[in-house]
């Protein structure tokens, strides 16, 4: 193989054949991506999520979106499992680490999101849906005086209600306003992502895919794709993948691409 790869090798001043550094870096990156998706897929989901959350917490503010993604797209029992795994792995509770490391108005939101054990059944109380859509409306109307993420009602609703209830609140809001809640939250990025993941997860997944597969995606954005692929059930994202089939063909290569397509093609686990 070395004989055939003369382009990859070059002679340096000591007339010693060595790898072209740039190519080596590239190869490492490509294989790392493959390794990451495999490792993530093989780990027990609870341990995996606990580790992902710990890592995101350590990285700080720019990675809080990962916290939102994980806490909002897992089922209630999966999130509980991650909390148990966190106890075993780190000898602390996840909420004590969150609460002591996250400052500012986002602390309340993120701690409450990770602590939720949402009802997952079909019952939804219409009265509450209406009044809570109104609460959102008021909070957004007053957003010049107070950030929406600091509104107690908004935080209460988003961190305690069932996902089905929240989807109905989202729909109801559209009757009260020309814009959707997500459109109104352009400034409050973390809150916007929270609403997306809880109320319109497909939009969120599409967004991540789109950004990751664009020409100027950075490392974190590409990592987001790996994370989604390895952690979401295939069924959830099939629709999203279909949209990006061509782009995946064009941009993704090798073993990583095979895993991507393979994991996503599974008929929801």
């Amino acid at each position, binding site marked *: 193989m070395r004989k055939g790869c003369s382009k990859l090798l070059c002679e340096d001043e000591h007339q010693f054949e060595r790898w072209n550094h740039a190519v080596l870096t590239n190869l490492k990156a490509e294989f790392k991506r493959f390794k990451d998706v495999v490792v993530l897929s093989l780990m027990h989901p609870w341990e995996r999520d606990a580790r992902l959350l710990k890592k995101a917490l350590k990285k700080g503010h720019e990675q809080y979106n990962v916290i939102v993604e994980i806490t909002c797209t897992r089922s209630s029992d999966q999130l509980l499992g991650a909390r148990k795994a966190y106890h075993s792995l780190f000898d*602390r509770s996840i909420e004590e680490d969150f609460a002591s490391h996250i400052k500012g108005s986002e602390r*309340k939101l993120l701690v409450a999101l990770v602590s939720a054990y949402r009802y997952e*059944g079909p019952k939804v109380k219409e009265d509450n849906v209406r009044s809570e859509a109104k609460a959102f409306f008021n909070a957004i109307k007053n957003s010049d005086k107070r950030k929406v993420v600091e509104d107690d009602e908004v935080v209460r609703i988003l961190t305690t209600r069932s996902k089905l209830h929240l989807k109905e609140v989202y729909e109801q809001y559209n009757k009260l306003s020309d814009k959707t809640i997500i459109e109104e939250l352009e400034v409050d990025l973390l809150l916007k992502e929270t609403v997306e993941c809880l109320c319109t997860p497909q939009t969120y997944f599409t967004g991540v895919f789109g950004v990751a597969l664009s020409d100027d995606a950075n490392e974190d954005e590409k990592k987001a794709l790996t994370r989604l692929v390895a952690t979401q059930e295939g069924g959830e994202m099939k629709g999203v993948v279909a949209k990006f089939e061509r782009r995946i063909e064009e941009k993704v290569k090798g073993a990583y691409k095979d895993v991507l397509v393979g994991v996503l093609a599974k008929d929801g686990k």
Partner: protein
Amino acid sequence: MATINAPKEVSFQQDAEVLRKACKGWGTDEKAIISVLGHRDAAQRKQIRLAYEELYQEDLIKRLESELSGDFEKAMYRWILDPADRDAVLANVAIRKLSPDHHVIVEIACTRSPEELLAVRKAYQARYKRSLEEDVAAHSKGDTRMARPNRSFYLLVALVTAFRYDGEEINTRLANSEAKILHEAIQDKKFNHEEVIRILTTRSKMQLMATFNRYRDDHGTSITKHLQGDSDDKFLAVLRTAVRCLNDPKKYFEKVLRSSIRRMGTDEDALTRVIVTRAEKDLKDIKELYHKRNSVPLDQAVAKDTSGDYKALLLTLLGKED
């Protein structure tokens, strides 16, 4: 230690038959019901319910609800339920009161183990088709038009959603620094409740006890004494209850019993709740504490203040031999 006397070998079928006989026909044989159910632990009671259902195609609980009445019925209903289900019912009753009884919610959230609290949350969802935290949050949000954030609501939701680490390890340095934070927060007129809530609702129980001990060592008095204040300040009252429950649950329960009996008329809800929920846990220790504190045995105080079948059930749960 527990107070109830439950025999190891039990025939659930026989028990179901006795209960059936007690409920059939005119009137009810309450003594027979007490003598069976008052001497069975949670696992046994569950088996009896299943046996009864199988034998008579009827829910034992529903049957008892229709046969019994008053404080006796309330107590028996709570006693016969699975512990997690019972706590869910207690929490729901507390939440739905016209003026929600936050202390009961705090009591359940803080005196149950982390795993038990999770079980309560699951049981609550199964029974009420909503999460415990959404009901607590929705019923304690208070007047949202007020500019001041509702501190009670955050405290309560954080307490019921906590899944504390339940290890024995203590970080002494952390206990020191957080005892300091608590002290500063309490002394400060502005009272930074956020840090107090953070510490109380996220740290492990062992860590908290170390922190409270450090507080007492540093300042000569317990943190609860420093949390005395305005009786109007509901937030402070709830905070005090949380600290008491986390610091010394048996002492807390003794106080609830003392208050429930001392009042003009008895607070049967509180009396029932403590006896029924602790009979299989640590009611024996609580009894000893009560005796020390009040110079009169708990059994005696209960016997004096209650009557009839209600009294008979309570005394049985307190360990009285038939």
